[in-house]
């Protein structure tokens, strides 16, 4: 088989190839989960960690930003795992959600959104300060990056932070998202993340749609719609308050 043959076979059917590869990967990871870990680590958690490892390999070998999708053969991953299909699938999980559960957790969900955003911002600012940053724009931008990797650059651009600081804020947000993906299935039980109400609170506290989506999928798929519903408002809320209220408060403190 020469490369021209492979290119026309796979290159012209990138999405289908992604379906096949993800299918094989899922099968292997679920078998690993069942036989090697005796079911202690959920198959989807294993698959997501392997996915992240593949993303690292893709990024490290090509220097690109799209993980494994930067390798031409695996370009279909960007389509399959892109925002369009992800959001479509997240919306579909709302089918079967119980209205009473939404009502019950509604107010606490909103409250966790505010607390989660403020807390992540403060943690980001504190870490930036500890690493020697003193100017308001940089501190605010890195704080916003700890909210999500979208809020960071939106804030940084709005208040005129340097591109290095903006890149750092994106990195902080991506680390957060990955940390949520990996830590959630392990921390869920001890921290009481076992029911719809807790999932709504969790989504509001963590935000990062991709992180909570993957973290909950690997914990208990029934939690997904509740967590995703609050998490989906998090980035918008962060983009709203970080460059405005956040920046004003930071200016009052650091000048």
């Amino acid at each position, binding site marked *: 088989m020469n490369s021209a043959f492979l290119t026309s076979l796979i290159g012209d059917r990138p999405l289908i190839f992604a379906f096949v590869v993800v299918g094989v*990967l899922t099968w292997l990871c679920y078998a690993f989960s069942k036989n090697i870990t005796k079911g202690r680590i959920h198959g989807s958690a294993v*698959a*997501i960690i392997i*996915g*992240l490892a*593949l*993303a*690292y390999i*893709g990024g*490290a070998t090509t220097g690109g930003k799209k*993980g*494994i*999708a930067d390798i031409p053969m695996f370009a279909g*991953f960007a389509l399959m*795992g892109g925002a369009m*299909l*992800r959001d*479509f699938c997240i*919306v579909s999980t*709302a*089918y079967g959600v*119980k209205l009473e*559960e*939404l009502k*019950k*957790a509604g107010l*606490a969900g909103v409250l966790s959104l505010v*607390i*989660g955003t403020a807390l*992540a911002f403060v*943690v*980001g600012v504190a870490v*930036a300060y500890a*690493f020697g940053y003193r100017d308001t724009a940089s501190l605010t931008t*890195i704080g916003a990056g700890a*909210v999500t990797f979208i809020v960071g650059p939106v804030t940084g651009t709005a208040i005129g932070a340097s591109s290095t600081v903006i*890149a*750092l804020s*994106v*990195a*902080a947000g*991506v*680390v957060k998202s*990955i940390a949520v993906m990996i830590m959630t299935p392990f921390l869920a039980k001890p*921290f*009481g*993340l076992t*029911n*719809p*109400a*807790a999932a709504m*609170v*969790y989504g509001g506290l*963590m935000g990062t749609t991709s992180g909570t*989506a993957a973290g909950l*999928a690997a914990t208990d*798929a029934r939690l*997904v719609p509740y967590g995703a519903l609050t998490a989906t408002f998090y980035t*918008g809320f962060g*983009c709203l308050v970080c460059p405005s209220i956040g920046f004003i408060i930071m200016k009052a403190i650091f000048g």
Partner: protein
Amino acid sequence: MIIYGVMVLGLCMFVGTSIGLTLGIMLGIPGDIGGVGFSMLLLVFLTPVLKKKGWLPKASEDGIMFWNAMYIPVVIAMAATQNVAAALSGGWIAIIAGILSVVVCFALIRPLAAMAGAATSTFGDEA
């Protein structure tokens, strides 16, 4: 027909995203403010009504359930396309800020969930 379920799902997404985008324009923020959340709420409120009227038979429901079942594979593909290399090369400041903000928020799940009624919260499908 399966396509009817997919169509309902797609319509919910377009209406929800329109709300999110309109909010963004009104608030002067580039992008979509919780469009997916509004789409989900729409689906939550709309489908029981459609079901009651008998407009959402099993086949149409399967159109929604297919995407529901594709969710984890899509998430795996999404994980494989994250910018992991950049996240790790951002250095300690990115890694510490990212992880610390997650750990701090985890500690708050229990108290806030208690307020949200976690004690009586169920999926409704336990035996």
